[in-house]
């Protein structure tokens, strides 16, 4: 009887701990991501278009956590050819230049929506007149 109770109790306890641990771990990971994302702030402080057909985004990390730029969209079209800056870790208060070739021809005088997206999914949007 004692043996049966011990075996059943241990099984139930083990299962409970596994369930709680799994649930909690998932929760913690989720919360960690959400918190990191919440602590992330960056701003496109300058956009430069030069005659080499390259755009240059100067991005400031003013959040509470390091970040890296993962993607850029121009009018919703993803930039595919980065020259520099993508994936570079930007520490707090630091700036990074993300240079890339636009996915299509930029027309002088036209306004474009530029979206920079961090690896955590945070984004900043500017409207830039070429």
């Amino acid at each position: 009887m004692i043996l049966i109770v011990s075996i059943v109790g241990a099984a139930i306890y083990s299962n409970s701990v596994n369930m709680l641990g799994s649930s909690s771990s998932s929760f913690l990971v989720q919360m960690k991501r959400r918190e990191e994302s919440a602590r992330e702030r960056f701003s496109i402080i300058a956009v430069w278009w030069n005659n080499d057909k390259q755009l240059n985004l100067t991005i400031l990390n003013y959040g509470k956590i390091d970040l890296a730029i993962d993607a850029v969209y121009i009018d919703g079209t993803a930039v595919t050819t980065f020259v520099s800056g993508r994936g570079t870790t930007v520490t707090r208060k630091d700036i990074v230049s993300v240079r890339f070739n636009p996915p299509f021809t930029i027309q002088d005088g036209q306004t474009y929506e530029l979206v920079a997206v961090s690896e955590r999914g945070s984004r900043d949007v500017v409207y830039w007149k070429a």
Partner: protein
Amino acid sequence: MSSTGRLSHNKRAAGSIIGGVFILLILLSGLTFYTLNVNVTKDFTETLQEMQQLDFERNKENVEFAGVSTTGGNKLNMTVRNTGSHQTHIIWLIVVDETVTPITQECHQLDIYVEPAETVSNLPQEDITIPEGEGRVIQLVTELGNTFSHTYPTSEEEDRDGYDFVDSNTSDADNSIDKGTHSLFSGQQYGPDGIVDTLTEGDTGGNIEDDVDSNTSDADGSADKGTETSFANAQGISLDSNCMNIRETNTGGSGGSEWLDCDAFDSTYSEWTEVGSSPYLATQDYPSSYVSSISASTREGWFDFPNTFLTGTLSVNLTIYSNNDDGVGDDRADVYVDYTGTGSGSLVGSVAQHANWQYDTINLGSHTVSEVNNLRVYLEYTKTGGGHDVRIDNVRIGVRSSADYEIDFEYQWTTTACSSDNEEVCIYVAAHTGTENLDVSYWGGSSWANLGSITSTGWTNLTALGLSSPTYTIQLVGTTESSDEYQDDWDIDLITLHTWNASNYELDLEIQWTSVDYDEGNEWLCIYGGTMGSEDILVDVWNGTAWINVFIDLSSGWNSVEVSSYLVSSSLTIRFRGGTETSDATKDSWEIDATFLHVWT
């Protein structure tokens, strides 16, 4: 049987305990995970709140460019002002050159904190060169993620936007004279750019040089003596080598001498033996004509003389040719002289106490022509021991006319300061011919009182005693004013009254705006100080009737104060004032780099 039942009962109890323990462990584990999750959730919530606060502050942040210019060497010089409601931390300066291909940008790290309403100038601290004639886009990036841009060079429209530099330093709102000086007023009208207007205290104690006003006064009712040329050359407040000459004039005789032999005898006293013809003593002709006596106390006279032809003050002596029988120390003739022609005469000396014939001379001193013309003599015999003869053969007077050079000039101030701590009559003698000194006196209302003497060339500074009214008169008189046969003259470059109080350095300088935008919601007076003197410098605002203090002292860097309550018209006047305005022996100065009104809504 009972043994089996007890065993069965005990086993159930142990199983229940073990089951309870497992249940307790499960509950504890659940509690632990619950607590952990609660803490994580709490931390996340705090993070969200923190970031919300950051976003809130970011939205409230605002920085304005108060001035962007280039200094010497084309170095960028900026002034920024925090017009937001939170402290701003500027961490990046980005200078973009859009004039080149490809566009370039320089990123300069900064670490500047600007408090709300504070203005910071002379940014950046490192040298950033902008070539003359070129433009740049300048961005300031704050820690909160805001970017503030400015295009250099500043357009005129932007330049005027809300910043109104002071217009004038010629106002006089309070009808009081300025004290102190500006070194470069325009230094306040721009910047801050390192070009400053240095305000320096003026000495209101200081010196006053008051040159003599007049040479025509006659305080003592006596005529001037001497000659004077070019009085104006003794005026002025500084030496200029142009001199007034004053020279003694001859108030004495014309010069020359003569002997006047006795020419009359009136027999008033005729107690001596008279030999020859009257007047017996006209010439040296013994034994032809002479008088003699042997009887004690006998008199002979009066003997008269012709009038003199000389003028002025005359030096007179009486010369008598005589002898006695017994020689030195014995019988004699006492000589009595009267200068009026009607007097009884007075004893002036004795003659004839020698056995040989000789002239005995008695000096009668200086006399007028009238006294000489009325001069008469009688003789009285004085006996010593046994009586023996005293003989007089000739009596004559020697007359010499001496020149007498005198000088007496008055000089007068008519509107001089008379309540200073220190007052001196200062006379500069450039040249002097002669050896006589000049006495300097002041008129005390009824007589002259001596101040001192001029004894050499150069400056003679004499305490101006008796200077108690705006009118002050001095007299220059030669120190030898009788029988002065030498004519002196003096070249005087300057006669001045030097009055001064102990130094007291004061500052009182007005400056004014004449066309201010005065109906904005925010109106601030902003002053950028450079190197400041140790004395406080106050700033007052004129409210139309009185000065209202708005700064009790200015610091180096920015000084800002709200002045909306005084800015009620297009004109505004302020003044800079020293903190210590009495007994201030130290001259302070303060550098003001920029003064403007910042108005905005």
